[in-house]
């Protein structure tokens, strides 16, 4: 081996060495609990909580309709809660994107102090307790809350609107909680977009819409993807927002899991739901990233 090759090899090993702490940390804190969950989801629930150690695939049957046995019955309500949750999560992603994308451009055009102030304000909510912030929304959205009073005073409505304890309230809450997670990666990619490229596009005869489709969108796509994923996943798994703002009517998969673990004390069933949610999220994210990557290639290709 030449000296250069030895050096390269040593650098590579050093690189792996640096990865050891995080690997150990993630391994113990993430993989081990995950393994426990996988195992639990295939165990029979005990009568008074706990588990009995026998192979029992029927937790999945209760959700999916197959296999069925061991006294479990298929109930489509779990699938319906799951699809409803996915829908809410997708809406959350779409709404935050709609809010953050123009805002990111607006902020990136600012200078110095104002820009830093805005970025600080975006992270400000993290300083306050999540429960309190969501509880504030409860006060805002209830029939006698600020929202309805304001609309009534303005003469836009007569009777208070029933927003609280609906899907709309949950959506508002989710967007509110997760908007910073959309904004920051989006802002980072918009900030990196060189305005001269937009001008070059105009100069070459592209209309504003063409410039957006062919230059702005593909170059900010990494931010859109990153933001969408890190909003979608916590939105789907969230249980605090639906618990507080959705009341008894709106249940998301997060609540369902929480219920099984804490109230019904049926850990194996809770674990089975959690596994299915996780698998679907993984699948959805992989499909999304693949699709976006292909789109990216296409915009990079002829006649996009």
């Amino acid at each position, binding site marked *: 081996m030449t000296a250069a090759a030895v050096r390269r090899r040593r650098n590579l090993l050093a690189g792996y060495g640096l990865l050891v702490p995080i690997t150990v940390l993630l391994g113990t804190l993430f993989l081990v609990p995950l393994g426990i969950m996988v195992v639990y989801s295939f165990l029979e629930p005990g009568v008074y909580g706990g588990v009995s150690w026998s192979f029992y695939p029927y937790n999945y049957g209760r959700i999916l309709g197959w296999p069925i046995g061991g006294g479990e019955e298929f109930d489509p309500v779990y699938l319906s809660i799951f699809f409803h949750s996915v829908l809410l999560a997708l809406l959350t992603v779409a709404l935050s994107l709609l809010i953050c994308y123009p805002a990111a451009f607006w902020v990136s055009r600012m200078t110095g102090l104002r820009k830093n102030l805005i970025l600080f304000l975006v992270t400000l909510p993290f300083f306050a307790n999540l429960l309190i912030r969501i509880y504030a929304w409860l006060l805002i959205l209830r029939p006698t809350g600020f929202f309805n009073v304001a609309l009534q005073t303005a003469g836009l409505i007569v009777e208070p609107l029933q927003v609280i304890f609906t899907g709309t309230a949950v959506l508002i809450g989710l967007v509110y909680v997760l908007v910073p997670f959309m904004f920051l990666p989006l802002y980072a990619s918009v900030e990196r977009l060189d305005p*001269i*490229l937009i001008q070059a*596009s*105009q*100069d*070459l005869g*592209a209309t*504003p819409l063409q*410039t957006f489709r062919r230059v702005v969108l593909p170059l900010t796509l990494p931010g859109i993807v990153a933001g969408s994923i890190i909003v979608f996943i916590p939105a789907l798994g969230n249980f605090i927002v639906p618990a507080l703002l959705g009341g008894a009517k709106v249940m998301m998969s997060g609540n369902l899991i929480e219920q099984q673990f804490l109230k019904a004390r049926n850990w194996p069933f809770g674990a089975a739901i959690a596994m299915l949610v996780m698998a679907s999220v993984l699948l959805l994210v992989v499909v999304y990233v693949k699709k976006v990557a292909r789109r990216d290639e296409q915009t*990079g290709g002829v006649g996009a």
Partner: protein
Amino acid sequence: MSGGSESTEDVLTVSGAVRQFQTPEGTWLRALDGIDLAIRNNEFLTLLGPSGCGKTTLLRVIAGLDDLDSGTLTLEGRPLDDVPAHRRPFNTVFQSYALFPHLSVEDNVGYGLDVAGIRPSERRRRVADGLSMVGLGDLGRRMPQQLSGGQQQRVALVRALVNNPKLLLLDEPLSALDRKLRGQMQIELKALQHKVGITFIFVTHDQEEALTMSDRIAVMNKGRIQQLATPFETYHHPANRFVAGFVGNSNLLGGRVVAADRGDLKIETEGGLTLIAGGAGFAVGDAVDVLLRPEFLSLAPVVVGDVAPTLEAQVEQAVFVGSEIHIHARTDRGLALMVLDRTAAGRGDGTADVGRVVRFHYDPSHVHVMRTGGTP
């Protein structure tokens, strides 16, 4: 497309163009301070001037990427002010190239054709022709980041050219290249302009580049055009002290006309020199600036008619560079003179040795006299 420059009618006229920017201190800075300019069909026009004089601003205004505060632009007689950048038949080669990082070389070059909806077969042909014209035929599938600076610059050039613009705007496109490549590209660009017959507006702050490439040069300073003329005129008959100093090496002296007789002038300059010069339209007492190019001062007399005027100065530095001697000299009253002598270079007799007081000869017709503060 047509080669040559058979037509001299104006393509684009800029009149009374003013563009100002607010400085952080709150005052206004006139980047363009009343520009009048008529660009002729098929010419290679250079905007030359020091950093910050408004060259880029003028180019951006023409391209439609920046708006005028007052003044107008007309393209072949039609006002252009309300036409947005994407509908102006001009293309720009940006100083930083501004290649799209997510598109291959081919797609960068084809960008203008794609958005214009050109048929795929024709697009392919024009992209391939363009790339091979600048010797990048094999690199079409590369991404811009995988090219050298010089190659990127060519891509930027072709990307603009394939659209057959009425005007090609080039903002210091060669400034990032090393000296050798730069010289090569200067020649290639000029040849290319001749071949495609497109009007070029070329920005540079390099006077040599401007002189070698241009049909006409617009020398700019502080947002104004100081002179618009051919390279020859700009060099030999600069309109004012600024142009004389910016283009080429020069001995520039302020002075006053002390005698004027039918175009023969006698001028007393700062530092107490008396110069004989030719120049019409001056009267005794006029304040003038006098330009004496270093190459028009020589050690041996250049006898013209009956006058062979001289200046006396002491040699402070003499550098022999083969075909000529570069001399820095100083008069007895402390005035520095630059001399580029060809008459004594071959003699080697010590005429120009450091410390010697010598007589430098000049031809009065080579002394260029300008009214102080004069503009065209």
